[in-house]
């Protein structure tokens, strides 16, 4: 199976591990990530204004490219996943945005939200299957107690993202189980890390990440996993006493599949 892959700006720079280990894992699992040529940054946050069209176009271009290839569009970064799914929903269901974007772009055929956007974790759950993944694990992470840190952008709003139950998700816990480790469920796993306030008010992420680490540590987590480079940054900058190491989920996946040092796609 081939997917149109939208890496996003951060995976080409500060979050190269998130990308690299995903590519290695995909080879081991038998699917192909075909990077979309000339993709443009999605902007990191969804443009909320109903009259904001220009800032949604980079997403529309990527979505339309995948449509022309007849492929589903796969993302790894929680934020890209959030933005692309929401813009796709607009193109499908919000006539005003869809008409204005199409009028501007003048594509060969109008884009109406035909592409399916999937997060890498959704591919593991819905296409590969966690049972199948489990069978391919050669280095089970036995004995590790891992807290899934979902953050917010992967889950909410649940009606549009349809990633998992936004109040009680389980996809990352099932993923952790498939790798042979033990998931740790803690209350702050879907609470925001402080997001972009980190740039000008470090106090907010400092307080948020302390609550997240206290919560995870209190329930016995040895480490956390995330799919979001900004969560990773905010968590890594934390000075909480309860801090535990944080990994991209793809790094543990590649480790369990025995391809962490493997050949790139």
């Amino acid at each position: 199976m081939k997917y149109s892959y939208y890496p996003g700006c951060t995976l080409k720079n500060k979050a190269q591990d998130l990308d690299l280990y995903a590519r290695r894992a995909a080879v081991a699992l038998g699917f192909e990530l075909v990077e979309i040529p000339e993709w443009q940054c999605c902007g990191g946050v969804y443009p909320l204004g109903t009259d904001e069209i220009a800032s949604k176009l980079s997403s529309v271009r990527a979505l339309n490219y995948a449509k022309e290839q007849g492929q589903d569009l796969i993302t790894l970064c929680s934020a890209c996943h959030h933005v692309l799914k929401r813009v796709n929903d607009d193109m499908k269901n919000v006539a005003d945005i869809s008409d204005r974007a199409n009028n501007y772009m003048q594509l060969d055929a109008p884009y109406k939200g035909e592409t399916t956007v999937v997060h890498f974790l959704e591919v593991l759950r819905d296409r590969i299957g966690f049972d199948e993944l489990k069978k391919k694990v050669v280095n089970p992470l036995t004995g590790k107690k891992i807290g899934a840190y979902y953050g917010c952008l992967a889950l909410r709003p649940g009606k549009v993202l349809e990633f998992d139950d936004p109040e009680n998700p389980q996809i990352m816990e099932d993923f952790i189980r498939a790798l042979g480790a033990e998931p740790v469920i803690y209350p702050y796993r879907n609470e925001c890390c402080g997001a972009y306030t980190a740039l000008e008010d470090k106090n907010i992420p400092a307080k948020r990440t302390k609550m997240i680490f206290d919560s995870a540590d209190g329930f016995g987590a040895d480490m956390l996993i995330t799919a979001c480079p900004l969560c990773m940054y905010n968590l890594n900058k934390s000075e909480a006493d309860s801090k535990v190491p944080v990994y991209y989920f793809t790094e543990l996946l590649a480790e369990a599949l025995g391809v962490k040092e493997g050949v790139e796609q």
Partner: protein
Amino acid sequence: MSLTMAEKQAEQIRQISGSDPYKCMKCGKCSASCPSFNEMDIKPHQFVSYVVNDNIEALAESKSLWKCLGCFACVERCPRDVQPGRVVDAARQLVERQRGGDHLHAEDIPALLDDDVPQQLLVSAFRRYRR
């Protein structure tokens, strides 16, 4: 009868956000869910009421505009689909769309960087804090 400035601005906020603040039943669930509640001078449920009451000047000066995290906890939990986070965003845009209204400037960036800042942080902050 012509609209006052504040009435026009309240209408703009309703249009930009696509939200109907009149549907609010003042249950307070948004504020109870908000991770930035303590940082805000005007709380999310109050924000919605201020729009209903055309009290826009206070919103434009509120520090809540810059403390909302865009986390969508309030949007997820509002039982009346008011989408308070979108109302906060629309008020922020109303300010930023004025000349000189940007909260973050390109010249500010170098001093705010460290070696680990992900690109995502810069583009997200730029999109939320300036137009």
